[in-house]
């Protein structure tokens, strides 16, 4: 041992450096192990990392106003080059003069040739609604636009002089933008480029984020309140009985999500089982049946049920190994059954509560199908709006920005959990 400090370079029997020999001896095994995980690594890269990276990129990059891609050939042509040049020469807030409108007219001709007015207009329309038709109309009439260009455009539509429109076009003329993130938190830019709130009647996203957060916390709490006693029962019953009960907990888990959600619809709707029963018993008049669906109640009830196993299983896995002698010891030491539970049993289940809560919360923050089916208008979550922008409004950049915010929130939560409880304490089963 003493000569290791004196001579740090150890050698093998035949004089080669020990470190190199060790690395060579283990290299083969390392490569083989790596080959085993390679398929999974590739799978994750292709199906998980790449799409997320693309999504994140999409949320700050939109070339709808700078590039036209021919659908058939895939040929890419830059558009709006003249107006981009004008924006580059003139600082933000410059009153658009004749030169600007001349550049715009030139670009309109290109749009007309390429039949790209719709997509370019759509990009502007994301941030200033009602703009798309102005672009299609201008492009249609591109050949008839004669100097003076400004009057010609105003003749087509008075809004062409709107400073807000020019602010949007200036921002859109470079593909990289933070505007979608601003929009995702109900902010916009003034014509001067200052950040301000959008009009009150158009504020959607912050409210929806808040509602998503609130409902997720509520659902997490409900699954905890319902799941804790069940998990405790599962953990303390003799194995023969607890296996049966476990099947009852897991059975919904194995049933299709759609089936479970629709069965809640059967139960909750105003002509549904619960209302019929209440009316039948006479607790409710036929006229005032409870509205339990297409609102937040529906979302909360159905999601609590569907996410319950994600709470019960981690709880069960921490409760099972807790030796009953801990509680007995506490009782023999003079604790009442409540004190024994609260001071001795409960603290030992915190890791399971943390894991279950994190799991349920993260799942419910991004939940989509159930709120879409039973949520109605007031029970929609942020993911429903993301889906709307993906499928209906086709504003993918905004959808990506919303999704990125959601992802960021979840990551922050995960980080917080790691700081407070420690991820290595996370027991999922």
């Amino acid at each position, binding site marked *: 041992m003493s000569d290791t400090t004196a001579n740090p370079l150890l050698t093998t029997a035949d004089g080669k450096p020990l470190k190199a020999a060790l690395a060579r001896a283990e290299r083969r095994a390392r490569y083989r192990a790596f080959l085993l995980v390679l398929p999974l690594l590739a799978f994750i890269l292709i199906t998980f990392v790449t799409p997320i990276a693309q999504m994140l990129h999409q949320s700050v990059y939109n070339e709808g106003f700078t590039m036209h891609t021919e659908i058939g050939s895939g040929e890419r042509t830059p558009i709006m080059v003249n107006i981009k040049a004008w924006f580059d020469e003139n600082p933000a807030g410059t009153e658009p003069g004749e030169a600007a409108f001349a550049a715009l007219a030139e670009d309109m001709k290109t749009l007309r040739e390429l039949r790209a007015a719709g997509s370019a207009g759509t990009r502007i329309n994301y941030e200033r609604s009602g703009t798309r038709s102005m672009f299609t109309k201008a492009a249609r009439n591109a050949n008839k636009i004669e100097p003076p260009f400004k009057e010609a455009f105003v003749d087509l539509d008075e809004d062409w002089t709107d400073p807000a429109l020019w602010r949007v076009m200036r921002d859109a003329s470079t593909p990289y933008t933070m505007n979608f993130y601003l929009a995702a938190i109900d902010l916009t830019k003034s014509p001067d480029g200052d950040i301000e709130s959008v009009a009150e009647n158009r504020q959607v996203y912050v409210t929806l984020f808040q509602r998503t957060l609130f409902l997720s916390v509520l659902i997490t709490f409900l699954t905890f309140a319902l799941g804790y006693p069940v998990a405790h029962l599962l953990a303390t019953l003799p194995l023969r009985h607890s296996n049966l009960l476990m099947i009852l907990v897991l059975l919904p888990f194995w049933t299709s999500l759609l089936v479970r959600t629709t069965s809640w619809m059967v139960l909750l709707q105003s002509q549904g089982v619960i209302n019929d029963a209440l009316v039948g018993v006479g607790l409710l008049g036929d006229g005032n049946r409870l509205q339990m669906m297409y609102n937040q109640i529906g979302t909360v009830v159905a999601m609590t049920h569907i996410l319950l196993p994600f709470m019960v299983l981690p709880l069960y896995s921490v409760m099972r190994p807790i*030796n009953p002698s801990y509680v007995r010891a506490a009782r023999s*030491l003079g*604790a009442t059954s409540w004190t024994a539970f609260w001071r001795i049993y409960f603290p030992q289940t915190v890791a399971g509560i943390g894991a279950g809560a994190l799991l349920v919360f993260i799942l419910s923050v991004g939940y989509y199908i159930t709120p879409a089916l039973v949520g109605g208008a007031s029970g929609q979550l942020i993911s429903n709006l993301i889906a709307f922008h993906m499928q209906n409004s086709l504003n993918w950049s905004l959808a990506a920005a919303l999704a990125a915010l959601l992802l960021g929130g979840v990551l922050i939560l995960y980080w917080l959990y790691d700081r407070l409880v420690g991820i290595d304490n996370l027991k999922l089963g």
Partner: protein
Amino acid sequence: MAASQTSDAFVEFDRVQKSYDGETLVVKDLNLTMPRGEFLTMLGPSGSGKTTCLMMLAGFETATHGDIRLGGKSINNIPPHKRGIGMVFQNYALFPHMTIHENLSFPLEVRNIGKSDREAKVKRALEMVEMGSFGTRRPAQLSGGQQQRVALARALVFEPELVLMDEPLGALDKQLREKMQFEITNLAHSLGITVVYVTHDQTEALTMSDRVAVFDDGIIQQLDSPDTLYEKPMNSFVAQFIGENNTLEGRVKEINNGVALVQLDDGELIDCNPVNVTKAGERTRVSIRPERIEFNKARLQEGVHTLKAEVLEFIYMGDIFRTRLRVAGNDEFIVKTRNAPDQKRLQPGEHIEIGWLPEDCRALDA
């Protein structure tokens, strides 16, 4: 300490029965009286009902029938936390999320004892088990023996008069176990507490206890001091369970002047101490301790019956020699002799004659 049936009995089991399923009795008609300050061990094979008795005393199981009294008062309907009984569990049951100090402080906190008082008591209890410097550690950071000491300190810190121990040394290695046996008995006697100790290890029971209750089949087979238990077992179960024992089977031929003449199944006659045989013709199991057997003719008493034996195996064990013989058809007849300079080392195949004092040879139930 002698068994006392006086009115100042501290712990009393009065005709206690326990059944879990309503079909079989785990504890059948248990009667037991313990004076204050006694160290009593419940010894028995697993399933003999000893742990159930302990749990009934602690309050975790209810007696199906009968009365359990503590200091003269029936405790059948007192919940465990009001009994004020300290308990040491088999797996120690130290609360894993608390430090050692918090573990010890817990019974004092739930008794609403003031902080300064608490600190002093915890400190004293930890020093008592020589764990004074470990207060800030968690149970998982301690070795098995250290955890055992802490569990002991925790059961004692609130100064209970009665402490129950459920196989507390079961998880320790042999050396540590022997050390702890000594420490526990010393502590119990110096504090003057009453201890009910459950174990299935007979050596532990013999070395630690004032009295040992041997359990089998839900019944106390014998309740006596360790030496009486070893030297004067009252039935063949106790004789077999406590220590090593040679058994010969036969029939009582006659009983004269307190000596029973037993005819073994191969026809040989021996003199025995009639323990629970009363009349001629009864079947009996004769029990002799291996160290009470003599094969040196010069040392045998005049006129005693001897048996022919063949040496099957000689095992050198250091301090003693262990010789396996064939006696009256029994191939597992063991003789233990001290490794003294003049001791004869028997050779396998040798034919010898063995004998013993009639009072060492106990004719028990068949």
